Structures are given as C-alpha cells and as structure tokens.
C-alpha cells in the first residue's frame, strides 16, 4: 500500500524515514548506475514492466497486489540493487507524474515497497534456493517482503499519525500477510514457468562490484540518516504529538 501525503503528522519521523528509504535508494543507484547503457536500458525497461503490471489490472486472487509480484520478479531478474532502482524509478514516476503515492513520503514508500521487499527476496534466494528450489524461495521472499513493508507502514502510522496499535497492525499487517501469501504463491508459479521457458532470465545476476570506499560511503549515508533523525528529535514540537493526544483522549474517557 502506498502511503499518501498529509497522513503522517510527525515531521521528525517523516524526515528520518525519508532519509533511510532515500539512502537505500541512493546507495543502490550509486552501485548500479553510471554511464553504462546496459544498466540504464534494463533498469528502465523492467521498471516500466513493474508499472505496466499494476496498470493492466491482471486478474489475480483477491487482495493480491501486482506491486509485490513485480518486486519479487525484478529482484530475481536484475539482482537486489538494480531492482531497488527500477522499483524506485517507478515510485518516483507514480508520485510526481501520476500523483499516486506521496511526494513528502517518497522515501517511506521507497523503504516499504522497494528496499525491504528486494532485500528480503534476495536474502531468501541466497539462503533457501539451494535447499528448497527457486520457486519456493521466491514465494517465501515475496511474502516476507510484503509483510515487512506492511509492518513498517503500520509502525509509521502508529508513531506518526496516532493510529491505534492493535487495530492498525490487525488491519494492515493482518490483511497484507494474507495478500503476501497469495502474492508469494503467484510469484512462485510465474518463476516455475520462467524456469521452463526462459531460464537465463533468472540466472543469478552478477552483483555490481562495490569498492571498499563505496561500501564506506553507504555506511556513512546510513549513519548520517540516524544522526539527523536524532538531532531533530529535540526540535520536535512541545505540543503532544499524534500518539500522545490519542492516549490522553483515551485516558480522559471514563
């Protein structure tokens, strides 16, 4: 689910999450993009595939989102860093050109819909594919990616918009877990078909070579995001935030 503009009321949290999601995207983009025509052509075209799959309204099982299936397939075909850039490019287009998903929460959506799903699909591929096979690993990775994105979104709503904890987790994480299982199963079916018809597409992509300095630069970005968030906390409003106001309201009730 895309987070929209204007829902999160805590600017420090919003900026911190935007920095974390943005840092993940920037690190992936720096590792994969350069003056290389191959990376630009593949990431651009498969980013368009991710958007097209959503726009086509493909009949899937109820509750399933084509977004998660796109994240799973792109990670298997391109590798995690290129998949993050492709999904991120699709999210940027959606936010700025189609007004779908917020501009101020672009970093949050990058984190929930690109960085977390791609990293989890890749981790499952590495850990589980040799033992369980690629379709099963893809199914588990896609499901976990959906659940992780929904959990992060629910936490953002609870802390940043005063949403009630149990209700929000039950609603968002519960429904998304069911959807994630369906999306994982569909991804596994597509992967099984691709293994039969286009196995080269799913061969493990060569990871972009990262030099030692690039790795340090990535860590510096992550550290900067955490430091900025910590520095902003004392500057937050002295007024009760969204969560505190809801707690006060609930306590005031007999």
């Amino acid at each position, binding site marked *: *689910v895309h*987070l*929209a*503009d*204007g829902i999160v*009321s805590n600017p420090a949290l919003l900026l911190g999450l935007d920095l974390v999601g943005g840092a993940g995207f920037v690190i992936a*983009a720096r590792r994969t*993009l350069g*003056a290389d*025509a191959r*990376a*630009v*052509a*593949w990431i*651009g*075209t498969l980013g*368009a*595939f991710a958007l*097209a*799959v959503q*726009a086509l309204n*493909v*009949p*899937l099982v109820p509750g399933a989102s084509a977004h998660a299936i796109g994240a799973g397939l792109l990670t298997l*075909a391109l590798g995690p860093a290129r998949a993050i850039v*492709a999904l991120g*490019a699709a999210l*940027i*287009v959606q*936010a*700025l*050109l*189609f*007004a*779908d998903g*917020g*501009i*101020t*929460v672009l970093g949050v959506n990058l984190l929930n819909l690109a960085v977390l799903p791609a990293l989890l699909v890749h981790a499952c591929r590495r850990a589980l594919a040799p033992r369980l096979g690629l379709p099963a690993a893809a199914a588990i990775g896609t499901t976990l990616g959906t659940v992780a994105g929904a959990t992060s979104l629910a936490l953002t709503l609870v802390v940043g*918009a*005063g*949403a*009630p904890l149990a*209700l*929000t987790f039950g*609603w*968002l994480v519960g429904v998304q877990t069911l959807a994630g299982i369906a999306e994982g199963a*569909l991804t596994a*079916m*597509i992967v099984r*078909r*691709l293994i039969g*018809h286009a196995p080269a*597409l799913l061969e493990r992509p060569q990871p972009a070579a990262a030099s030692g300095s690039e790795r340090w630069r990535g860590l510096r970005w992550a550290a900067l995001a955490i430091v900025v968030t910590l520095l902003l906390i004392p500057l937050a409003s002295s*007024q009760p935030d*969204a969560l505190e*106001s*809801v707690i006060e*309201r*609930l306590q005031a009730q007999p």
Partner: protein
Amino acid sequence: VNAALAPSIGARVLGSVLLVVGIATAPLDRARSLIVAAALVGLLLALLRPDRRLLARRAVPAMIGLAALVLPIALVAPERAALIGCRALLALIAAIAIAGTIPSGRFGPALAAIGVPSSLAAVIAGVLRQLDLLLAEGRRLALARRLRGARGTAASVEMLAALLTRSAARAERVELAMRLRGYAGLAPAADVSLRRTDAPVLIAALAAALLIQLAARG
C-alpha cells in the same frame, strides 16, 4: 507569447514539490492552516483548470487507498481522522492538478534539468518511454489468451511470464540502440531547463507553502 511565458517543466516539478510539502505538513491543531490550504488549492484549480475526467480517474483510486490508511484512526479519533483526511485530500488534488500539466515525454529531461543525476533521469525517461509499449503488449497478450479460452489465475501467470520475457527482449534491443547512438547520459533539454521567467511561479509556490505554515502560528 503564452508558451514562452509558461513555466518550464522543471519549474512545474519543483513548484509541485514545494506546494505539496507545504500542504502535507500543515499543522492540524489550528483549522486556519487547512482553510488557507483549501483556498490555495481552489485558486490553483481555477488557474490550471485540469481535465475533470483525469482528476476523477486519478483521485478516486487514491482516495480509496487514503480511506484504508485513515480507517484505524477514524475508529478511535474521528475528528483527527477527518482533519488528516482533509489535509491528505488537499495535497492529493494539488499534486494531480500540477502533474496534469507535465507531459510524460519531457519528465526525464526535466528531472535532469533540476539536478537529478543524468543516469537516474535516463532510467526514469526509459520507464516512461517503455510504459505505453509494454501496456499495449500486455493487452495484446491478455486478449490472445482470452480468445484461446484461457481464464483465471493460470492465464494471468502465463501472461505475466510472457510479458516479463518480452520486456527483457525489449531491454536488450534498447541497450543495443543506446550503444549504437553512443549513449553518454541524458542531457537536459533547453525547453525543460529552469529560466528567469520561472521565478514568479517558484516564489508563488514557496510563498503558498509558507503561508499555510504561518496561518497556524499567526
């Protein structure tokens, strides 16, 4: 003369970001800031006169998503949920109205013109260039499978797998074409770059964002 005075695409993107940030971060403890934001969005709609069908086509699905996110808040704090919903709706309408004035073919070069790295701008331009082609391809694949009597999830799986393989084949052709043309990044085109005549639009967007913030504090 009007085309020459119209803000560049880069300025429209920047203006959209400034205005939406101003609306989306409007404090909720004073209704005044939302009233000012509503007035400014009304003025924006009167100036840009966006296509009503486009506005409805984009706003309705976004509002359903918005309702799903605000629902848990509405169950414990309906007043707060209503304020959040109003703020989100105003930001959404402003974003749709401005996005409707940005031609998709010029969006990538416009991003390069406002400082986005040229390789990322090239990827985004590539996404937009391939999107219509892949949508048409997907519709053809879906129609072909329907005509052959394929239905349900199995047909969708078959269609998505075929669309992914065709996307990969297209990516190979795009790469070859880029190499043959001597690709060296996406250069910002003159018609999308920021120019002096953009200053009033950018100042107005910044002033609107500040006005919304100051309205709550005044």
